[in-house]
C-alpha cells in the first residue's frame, strides 16, 4: 500500500494540511506518556545457537552445528550455550563482556524468548522487513514507525521515531525518521538562540519569539501560494518540524552531564559500542522528556560468513551489554519508565546449522529467535522451538511452549505472530485495516 492510500485508510490527513493550527512544543502541553518501544537489530543475522537456542550435536548430515561447546546449560525454561562473550574472543583471560548464563541470571524473569521463528527468507533486506515490518512481501512501516505515527497524531513530538542506521526503517513518509549520532552534537544545535556549540545567546528571548511568530505567518503565506500536493505536504512537514524544535532543549537538559560509555559498564572494555549506547540513552531520556516515542537501534556485523564463532561472540557480548544497559535504565525509579517501555531484540534471520568449508563461517538460515521485554509481559518463558537440526518446529497455537505436530494443528511461529501481539499491546490495531498481517493471531505477550 502506498503512502497516500494509507493516509486515506488510516483517516489521518493532518500531515497533508498546511498550517493546521498546531501549537509549538511547550512544557505546558500534554506530553506523550507511553507506551514506548525500542527495537534492536543484530545487523546481518545472529547465530542463535550461540546463546539461547543451543545445538551441541550434529545436524542430520553429520556436521557439527556449533563448535564452541558440546553441552548445554539450562536455567528454568531456558537452554543456553555455555560460552562466554569476551572483549577478545580468542583470549579466555580477556575481559568478560557477558555470557548467555549471566544474562539469564540477571534478566530471565523479564525475558520472553521466541525460538524457531520462521522468517521464510535468507535475504537480508527481506529478513529485516519481515522481522520489523511484520510482512514478508510488503514494505510496511516498521512497528516502531507505526507507534510513532500513532502518537504523532495526537502529540507534538520533536523526534517521534529515532534511529541511527541499519535495521529496517521504513516509514512510508508518515512520520519523519530522525537520525542521531552523538549527544554532544545534539547539544550544539538544540538551543534556539545560541551560537552553535557555544553557550552564548545571539538573540534575545523577545527577538527569538518574534522570529518564530514571523515564521508561522510566513508558512501561512506559503500555504496560500503552494498548490501542488507534494509542495503542500513538504510545507506541512516543515511546519511540524519547526514547531517541535523547541522540544530539543528540554530533552538535552534532562540528560546526565556525562554521556553513558562502555567504560562505565565494563571498565577496561574500551569504547566500541559508545555510539549505540548513547543513542539508547538519548532514546530513554527522550521517552521521559516526551520527545521520543520509539527508537530503532542496530548493532554489530553479525553476517559472519567467515570465522563465525569468534565474531559472533564479540558482537553478542556487545549486544548483551547494550540490552542490559537499557533494561537496567528502564528500571531506575527516577526514569519513571518501568511500566511503559517495550524492548524487542531480533535479527535479519539466523545462521546455518553447519560451517562453511575452510572459512569456519556460517551462511543465512531462516529460523531465528526474538527476545521481548515489556510491561505485563510474563518473563521466564520460551515459546516456539527449533527441531534438533535447527529447522523451525511446530508448536501448539494454544500453548506455543508445547510441541504439536503439523498434522495435529501445530504451527510454526513467524514474525507476523509477534506483530499481531505487538500491535495489540501497543494499541496499533487500527493499522490492521490498512496494513494487514498474515497468519492467525496467537497469544504470545
Amino acid at each position, binding site marked *: 500500500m502506498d503512502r497516500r492510500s494509507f493516509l486515506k485508510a488510516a483517516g489521518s490527513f493532518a500531515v497533508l494540511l498546511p498550517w493546521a493550527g498546531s501549537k509549538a512544543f511547550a512544557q505546558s502541553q500534554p506530553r506523550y506518556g507511553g507506551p514506548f518501544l525500542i527495537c534492536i537489530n543484530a545487523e546481518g543475522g545472529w547465530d542463535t545457537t550461540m546463546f539461547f537456542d543451543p545445538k551441541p550435536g550434529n545436524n542430520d548430515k553429520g556436521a557439527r552445528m556449533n563448535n564452541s561447546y558440546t553441552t548445554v546449560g539450562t536455567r528454568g525454561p531456558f537452554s543456553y550455550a555455555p560460552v562466554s562473550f569476551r572483549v577478545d574472543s580468542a583470549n579466555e583471560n580477556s575481559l568478560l563482556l557477558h555470557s548467555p548464563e549471566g544474562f539469564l541470571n540477571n534478566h530471565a524473569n523479564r525475558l520472553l524468548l521466541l525460538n524457531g521463528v520462521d522468517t521464510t527468507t535468507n535475504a537480508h533486506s527481506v529478513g529485516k522487513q519481515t522481522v520489523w515490518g511484520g510482512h514478508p512481501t510488503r514494505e510496511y512501516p516498521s512497528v516502531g514507525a507505526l507507534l510513532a505515527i500513532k502518537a504523532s497524531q495526537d502529540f507534538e513530538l520533536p523526534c517521534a521515531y529515532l534511529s541511527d542506521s541499519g535495521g529496517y526503517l521504513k516509514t512510508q513518509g508518515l512520520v519523519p525518521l530522525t537520525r542521531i549520532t552523538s549527544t554532544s552534537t545534539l547539544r550544539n544545535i538544540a538551543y534556539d538562540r545560541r551560537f552553535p556549540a557555544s553557550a552564548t545567546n545571539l538573540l534575545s528571548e523577545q527577538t527569538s519569539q518574534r522570529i518564530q511568530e*514571523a515564521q508561522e505567518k510566513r508558512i501561512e503565506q506559503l500555504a496560500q501560494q503552494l498548490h501542488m500536493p507534494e509542495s503542500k505536504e513538504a510545507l506541512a512537514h516543515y511546519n511540524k518540524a519547526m514547531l517541535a524544535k523547541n522540544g530539543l532543549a528540554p530533552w538535552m537538559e534532562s540528560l546526565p552531564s556525562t554521556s553513558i560509555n562502555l567504560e562505565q559498564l565494563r571498565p577496561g572494555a574500551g569504547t566500541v559500542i559508545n555510539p549505540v549506547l548513547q543513542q539508547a540513552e538519548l532514546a530513554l531520556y527522550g521517552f521521559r522528556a516526551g520527545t521520543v516515542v520509539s527508537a530503532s537501534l542496530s548493532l554489530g556485523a553479525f553476517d559472519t560468513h567467515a570465522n563465525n564463532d569468534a565474531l559472533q561472540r564479540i558482537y553478542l557480548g556487545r549486544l548483551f551489554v547494550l540490552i542490559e544497559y537499557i533494561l537496567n535504565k528502564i528500571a531506575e525509579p527516577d526514569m519513571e519508565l518501568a511500566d511503559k517501555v517495550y524492548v524487542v531484540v531480533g535479527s535479519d534471520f539466523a545462521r546455518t546449522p553447519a560451517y562453511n568449508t575452510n572459512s569456519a563461517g556460517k551462511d543465512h538460515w531462516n529460523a531465528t529467535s526474538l527476545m521481548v521485554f515489556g510491561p505485563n509481559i510474563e518473563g521466564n518463558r520460551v515459546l516456539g522451538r527449533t527441531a534438533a537440526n535447527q529447522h523451525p518446529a511446530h508448536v501448539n497455537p494454544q500453548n506455543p511452549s508445547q510441541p504439536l505436530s503439523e498434522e495435529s494443528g501445530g504451527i510454526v511461529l513467524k514474525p507476523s505472530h509477534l506483530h499481531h501481539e505487538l500491535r495489540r499491546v501497543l494499541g496499533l490495531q487500527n493499522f490492521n485495516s490498512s496494513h494487514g498481517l498474515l497468519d492467525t493471531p496467537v497469544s504470545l505477550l
Partner: protein
Amino acid sequence: MQNDTSKHELKNFRRRRRCGEKTSGHWEKRLEWPLCLATSFFLLLALAGCDGKSSANKKTNETEEDPPTVETDVEAFCKTQRQQFHQGLWAPLFIKACQGCHNSSGAAILDERARFVLLPETYPNAAQANLNTIASFAKEQAEGSSYLLAKVSGKIPHLGNTIYPEGSEEYRQLESFISELNNPPNTPDAELPPSCENVAPRMDSRLSAVQLLDAQATFRKATINIAGRLPTSEEEARLEQTPEHLRTSMEALLEEEAFYERLKEVFNDMFLFSLRGQRGFAFNYFQSKDYTRTDFDTIYAATYYEDFPNIQRKLTSVLNRRMNEAGDTTNFSLVNAATATAVSLALWEEPLALIAYIARNNLPFTEILTANYTVVNPYSAYAYNLGEQPAEGTPANNWWPVQLIQRQGTPTEALVPSSGILSTAAFLAQWTTTATNLHRGRAEFLSKNFLATSILSFAQRPVNSTQLDATNNPTVNNPACAVCHYYMDGLSPTFTGFGLGTQATYQPHLATWDNKIYLPTFQGEIFPRSHNNRLSMPWMAERIAADPRFPYAMVLRVFEGITGRKPLEYPSDITQPNYVQLLAAWESQNAFLHEVASKMAQQGMNIKVAFREILLSPYFRAAQDAQLPAELAIGLGEGRLLTPEILSRKIKATLGTAWGGFSNFLPNHSLTSATYNVLYGGIHPTENAARLTQINTIITAVAGAMAREMGCRLPAWEFAKLPAERILLTHVQVDTKPLRQNSPGGPLEVDSTGEQAIRENLAYLHKRLFGENLSPHSPEVDLSYALFVDAWKERAEANEGRGTSTIAHGSCAGRWDLSQASSTGSSYTELPSGQQLTTDAHYTLYAWETVLTYLLMDFRFIHE
C-alpha cells in the same frame, strides 16, 4: 511516428466506430472483474473517442520532434488495454509465479530452453510485448488442453512444478482469459480493435499541459542544483528576452566544470564511495605503528603472482625504501601520511572520475562499464606504479586515462581486464564478496543499478528450509532458490578472478569454470569456454551496456539525483484501493523515463541528454496545477529538501561564504562534515546508504544553527566591505535606520527614506535567497520589515543613552574577510584595522542579524 499499418488501422477504426451502440448490458455483464481482455477489446472499441469530443477537433502534432500533447483515440484504447492486462493478468498471475524463471536469464529458459519468455516491467513497452507472448501461447494445445494451463497446473512436466492447481482461483482466471482469446465473440468485422503493436505508452498529456516555472525560474533552480551557483545577470537578461533559449542555456550549464562534480555526486548515491575520508583503503595501516615488518612480509609474501591493482605492494616498497634510506627499518612513521591519505582519496574517487571523464568528453556512457582504461591522478598514478611520488601540495584534480598493466608473474606485460568502474579498486572494495557469497551481492548490484532489475524481487516466495535441506545443491535444483540464482549466478562470474578475501586483487588462477552455474551468462548467452577467462568481465559489461535497460537505469539514477524523488515503483499489489490511478501514474512517468532513455541512446548515449531532458521536464519545472489528479501530481512541484551538499553550495553561492569557514585553504562545509552530514540526512559509505528526503526536527535544528551563525557573521562583514563588493546588504548603509529621532530625547518617527531602502533590500534578499520577485511593500516583505523594526527598536531601547551596542559573539564582529582563507588555510583573513566593524553603533547589525536568521531558516531556502 506510427507506421503505415497502424495508421491504416486507426483510419478504419475511426471510420467504423459507432459510438454508444455497444455499451449494452450484454457487454457490461461480461466485464465483471477480472476484466477479460478479449471482451474488453470490443467494449473499448465502443467507448474510445466517445467522450463528446471529436478527435478531429483535438490538437495533434505527430512530428518526431514535437509529439502530440493530446492523447489519440488509439492511444487511449491501448492504454486501457495495458491497464487491464496489468491488473487482470500480469500483476496477479504472472509476476510472482512466472517472471522469476521465465525471464531471459531464468531457470526455465536456461535449463529447459523454454520458449515462454517474459520481460520485466523495466523494458520499453514490456506490457505489450508480454501480452503478445501470452496471447500467442494461449493458442497452443498440449495433452488435450491449453498448453499454458497444462504447464501451470503441472499436467505436463514443468520445472517450477505446479503453480496454479486446477480449480484454483488463479487457474480459473487464466482459463477464462485463454478461453476468451481463443473464442472471441461473434463480432462484425467493422468492430475489430486497432493494433497496439506500435503504440508505445507516453507521458500523460495532462502533464504536458501543467503550468511550468518560467525560463528564468527554471534556470535559477537548475544552476543551484547542477552548478551550485546563481544565474548571472547576463543569463537572466537573455532568458527574460528570449525564454526559448532555456534549452541552450541548460546545455551550456552542463558543460561547466561544476556539473561534473554534481554528476559524480549523483552517481555516488549509487556507489557510496568514501569521498570525504570516511573510509581508508587497507594500506591505512601504514600509518599504524602496531604492525611489524614481519606482518608486512607475511601479508605480501608472493601469494599472488599478479597484483592488480598493485596498490598495497607499491606502498610497501615505498615504505621499505624510506626505512632503508633512514637506516631505521622499524620506523613506520616515516611513511608520508599525507601522501597515503591522498592516494586513498584518489582511489575512492577513481570510478567517479572515470564517469566524469566520459561525460566531459561526450563519450558513450556505456563506457562506464566497457572502458578498457581507467583514469588516474598524480596520487593514484603513483600507487599504480605509473608515476613518481607527487611533490607536496600537488593538486589532486588532474585526471587522465591510462591502461593498467600487470608487472609481475607473467612473461610479458599484458593488460589487466579493465572494465570501466567494475574493475576499479574502489568498486571492489566497497561492494565486497566472500568465499560463500561468490560475487552474488555484486551481481545484484549490477542488475539493480545497470539493468533496473532487482533480483531480490523475483523471490517473493517463502523459503522453506526443510525443503532446501532436502535438495542437493539447492541453488540449482530447488525452484525456490533457482528462481533467483539462475539469473544471479549468471551475472556473478563477471567478477571471477578477483579475490574473495582481498577484494581488489586480481588472481587469474581463480578464474576457472568448475561448474556450469559459474559460467558467465547473460540473457541466455553463455560465455564461451574457449575464451580467455580474463575476458569474462568485459564480455559481460558489453552485454549489459547493450541492453535497452541500461540507458533506462541511468535515467532513473539521474532523475532521482536531480529531483530528489525516487521514480515510482511498478504497483504490483492490485488490492490497493487506488491501484488504477497508481498504475496510470507509474505508466505515465515510466513512459517519460523511457523517452528520455531513448533520446539518450539516439544521441550517442550521452549522459548530458538525460540531465537536459529531465531539467526541461515537468518533473523539474512543474509549478502549479490545481486541476491535476493527485496521482499524476506525485513527484511534482517545489518542496524538495535540499541535500547537505546542495544546500552547502547554495549557502556559498548566495551568501558569499561557506558555513564552516576554511580548511586547507578550501571552503569547509559544516553540513557535509562528519558532525552534521548524517543528522542532515546525508549518505555515508558504510552507515547510511539512503538520503532522508523528509525534513525532521533535527534537520530544522541544524538549519537553525546555520542560520543563527551566518545571520550573526554576515552583517558586520557586509558593512565592512566596500559598497560595490557587497552582495547582501546592497541597498542600505550601516546607518540606514527605519526610525529616527528628530531631536535628542524626542519620539521615534518613521524615517521614510530609511524604510524604503530597507524594504528594497529585503525584497532583494527574497529574490537572492528564494528567487521570489516581490514588491518592497508585499506581505512577505512586510513580515521581514516588521521583524527588522522590532529588533532595531529593542536594541535601541536597551541601549538608550549608551549610544552603541556590542556584538554578542566575537565571531560575528566584522574583523575578517569571510571569503578569504588566512595564511594558515584554516581561518579567515583579517581585515585591515580601518575597515573593521566591531560595534553595533546604529543597532542595524542586530536588526539585520535577526532578519537574516529568519530568512536563512525559511522553507524556500532549505527547499527548492
